[in-house]
């Protein structure tokens, strides 16, 4: 990796993003081919994907990756030409090669050089099975090497997706798009550094989108006699041409592109080959692609935070309005402030909705990994498995997707490894020999529901009871939930698949603590297991009830609240050392929030006849919290809270109100957990 220049990181990042997508599509198509070896669409698609991967990685100097992709491309070229058929061993070798490509890309993404991974064995195996020469031409002699770009007939190099999005973003920033042509004088003995000097000058003051030939990796020197640079800038044209004012640079020609030219650029695709493939396959997918833009998650988070701050000022303004309206006079100003405040409120709400939309991604990004996972595992285990996936389009917060990936993978591995029986056992039980695993996602109200079910043997309730020492009066339904309690694991011998000792308890902790979600299991002996995960739509905004207690304000997430009640002295009973509230004939533990937060008070009777109570409910149980006042319901933008301020972990986050007051968000699950495990005295 010997490239220099300012653009490298950007280039590398774009490569990594794109290649990840390529690998995913590659896997999808290979799986398709495994089902249907003659599928011409998939064969063409794999050929195209490996071709792109080869060219892009060669461009960045990842020769091993490029070579591997090249071999695959050769194999699929032969398959396409029908001089080679896809045998089972060849398919396996192709999958190994695809895995290795994935491995190399992940290593590159953490900064390793691709040459550190051994590719020879896989390449040779592939070549042998395909009857091709293994090492005929390790380096690319022609094609992408001449200019590094495939130039179309019109002379315009087609844009890469990230370059296209750069244009769109630049337009949104109100910048002009320019095409700059320069010539390096014949007198220049070496042309590349001279072209580079101009390129560098431009990079310093404008946003260079594309150059032809490419600048970041030197090509043959004579190619740099002419250089075309596509850039965006808000600077006047003279400033841009001034950047070309160095020795031996001739005739800089700067052209501001009009909308028609920009549209033309945007409609050009990566390679001519792809254009034909895409349009012939379906016009619809091409259209969807052209309307989406790749955005850095950090940028989205930044916008999200900013809108969060906007809501603070919105609240501040409406409070100012309240104060103003209590004063006499200035009626016309009051009206105007009210209207402005209302409009701001409406727009902020809409903005939150819109930005929330950008944070959401279809859960397909996660689910699409599973066919491959299931295939590999089932072959390793000698089990025959059919996988069903539903609700791929369900949208979910991207931060949740990242955290959810591991636990969900673990659940699926468990189903395969422990849930589904061996083929022999299934035959004996009169079940279809192929086991079934279904993964689904859907939105229900304010929650995302994800289910993983299998038609395997189900959980061994007896064993769970014995291991966890569960009392006889606990129902089977309740007992199976113990697989989620810390330290629990039913299987004695750990196979290498289920993740060595990491059990469902760890899965549950991640879902509950990191995702603020819930997980539950249903199981029927002999006929299968279902794991249901409930997740909030997003982690960063929470519709909450603000309450006051001992002069401070706190918030309780509305999703945790069952009801707000008036608690009078006669509804309160005492059982042992603790109080309970008689809630429609049921005894609900009663907690005075002030004593939870500030230590026990002397008297146990409520000061007033009527007290405000908030009944909160979690899977573990319910509690009625006695508070001073119910203040208001609000959408709060939650920020994480430092452990220093939260040593008892009673809070799940913190937020800032319109008037600058800081509000802690109560972690009701934790409060209930403390009650269930012995109360507040010990902490």
């Amino acid at each position: 990796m010997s490239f220099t220049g300012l653009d490298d990181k950007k280039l590398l990042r774009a490569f990594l993003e794109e290649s990840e997508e390529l690998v995913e599509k590659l896997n999808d198509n290979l799986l398709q081919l495994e089902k249907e070896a003659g599928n011409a669409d998939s064969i063409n698609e794999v050929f195209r994907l490996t071709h792109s991967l080869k060219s892009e990685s060669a461009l960045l100097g990842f020769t091993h990756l490029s070579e591997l992709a090249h071999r695959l491309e050769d194999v699929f070229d032969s398959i396409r030409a029908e001089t080679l058929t896809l045998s089972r061993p060849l398919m396996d070798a192709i999958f190994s090669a695809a895995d290795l490509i994935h491995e190399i890309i992940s290593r590159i993404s953490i900064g390793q050089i691709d040459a550190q991974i051994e590719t020879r064995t896989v390449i040779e195996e592939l070549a042998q099975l395909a009857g091709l020469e293994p090492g005929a031409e390790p380096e690319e002699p022609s094609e992408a090497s001449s200019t590094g770009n495939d130039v179309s007939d019109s002379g315009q190099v087609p844009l890469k997706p990230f370059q296209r999005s750069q244009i769109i973003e630049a337009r949104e920033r109100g910048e002009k798009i320019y095409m700059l042509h320069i010539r390096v004088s014949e007198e220049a003995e070496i042309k590349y550094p001279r072209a580079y000097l101009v390129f560098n000058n431009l990079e310093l003051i404008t946003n260079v989108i594309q150059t032809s030939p490419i600048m970041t990796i030197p090509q043959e020197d004579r190619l740099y006699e002419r250089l075309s640079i596509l850039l965006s800038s808000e600077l006047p044209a003279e400033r841009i041409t001034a950047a070309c004012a160095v020795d031996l640079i001739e005739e800089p020609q700067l052209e501001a592109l009009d909308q028609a030219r920009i549209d033309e650029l945007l409609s050009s695709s990566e390679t001519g080959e792809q254009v034909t493939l895409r349009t012939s396959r379906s016009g619809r997918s091409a259209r969807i692609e052209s309307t989406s833009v790749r955005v850095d998650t950090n940028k989205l988070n930044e916008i999200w935070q900013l809108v969060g701050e906007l809501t603070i000022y919105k609240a501040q303004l409406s409070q100012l309005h309240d104060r103003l309206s209590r004063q006499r006079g200035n009626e016309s100003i009051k009206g105007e402030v009210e209207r402005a405040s209302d409009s701001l409120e409406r727009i902020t709400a809409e903005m939150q909705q819109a930005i929330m939309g950008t944070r959401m991604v279809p859960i397909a990004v996660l689910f699409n990994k599973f066919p491959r996972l299931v295939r590999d595992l089932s072959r390793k285990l000698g089990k025959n498995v059919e996988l069903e996936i539903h609700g791929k389009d369900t949208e979910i917060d991207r931060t949740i997707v990242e955290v959810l990936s591991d636990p969900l993978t673990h659940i699926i591995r468990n189903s395969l490894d422990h849930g589904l029986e061996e083929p022999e056992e299934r035959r004996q039980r009169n079940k279809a020999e192929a086991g079934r695993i279904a993964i689904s996602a859907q939105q229900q109200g304010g929650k995302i529901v994800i289910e993983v079910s299998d038609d395997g043997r189900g959980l061994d309730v007896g064993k769970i009871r014995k291991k966890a020492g569960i009392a006889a009066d606990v129902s089977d339904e309740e007992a199976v939930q113990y697989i989620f309690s810390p330290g629990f694991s039913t299987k004695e011998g750990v196979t290498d698949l289920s993740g060595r000792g990491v059990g469902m308890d760890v899965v549950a902790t991640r879902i509950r603590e990191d995702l603020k979600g819930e997980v539950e299991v249903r199981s029927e002996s002999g006929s299968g297991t279902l794991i249901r995960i409930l997740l909030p739509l997003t982690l960063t905004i929470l519709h909450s009830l603000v309450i006051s207690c001992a002069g401070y304000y706190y918030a309780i997430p509305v999703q945790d609240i069952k009801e707000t009640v008036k608690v009078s002295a006669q509804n309160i009973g005492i059982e042992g050392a603790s109080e309970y509230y008689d809630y429609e004939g049921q005894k609900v533990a009663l907690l005075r929030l002030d004593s939870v937060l500030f230590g026990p008070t002397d008297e146990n009777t409520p000061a007033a006849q009527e007290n405000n109570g908030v009944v909160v409910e979690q899977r573990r149980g319910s509690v009625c919290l006695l508070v001073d006042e119910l203040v208001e319901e609000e959408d709060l933008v939650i920020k994480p809270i430092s452990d220093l301020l939260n040593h008892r972990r009673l809070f799940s986050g913190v937020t800032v109100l319109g008037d600058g007051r800081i509000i802690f968000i109560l972690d009701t699950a934790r409060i209930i957990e403390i009650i269930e495990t012995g109360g507040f005295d010990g902490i």
Partner: protein
Amino acid sequence: MAFRVLLADDLYFMRMVQKEVLEAKGFQIVGEASTGTEAIAKYKELRPDIVVLDITMPEMNGLEAMKRIFALDPDAKIIICSAIGQQNLIVNAINAGIKDFIVKPFKPERLLSAINKALQG
């Protein structure tokens, strides 16, 4: 007012040629250096408008001297003298912020043109 130039090259002959060319066009050569170390010291002392710096010099080469000068004065105007075959060094120098470069052997107008354009920018 004449622009003030610092010349740094280990070859006396080279500096002489450059000096002649530049003085003929009204530039003022305020100092000369024959090593990288000397170039830095002279830059600090004289604060010239522009430096013509040879890449290959004893006691700290031109690139190292260039970096130190930029550390002293981020707005320093530097032109590098290089030879064919030093493309990578030139690209590094461009990234570091030089205004232009000249490839040896060079014609007088190359030096003049490079310096004039660099001083304009």
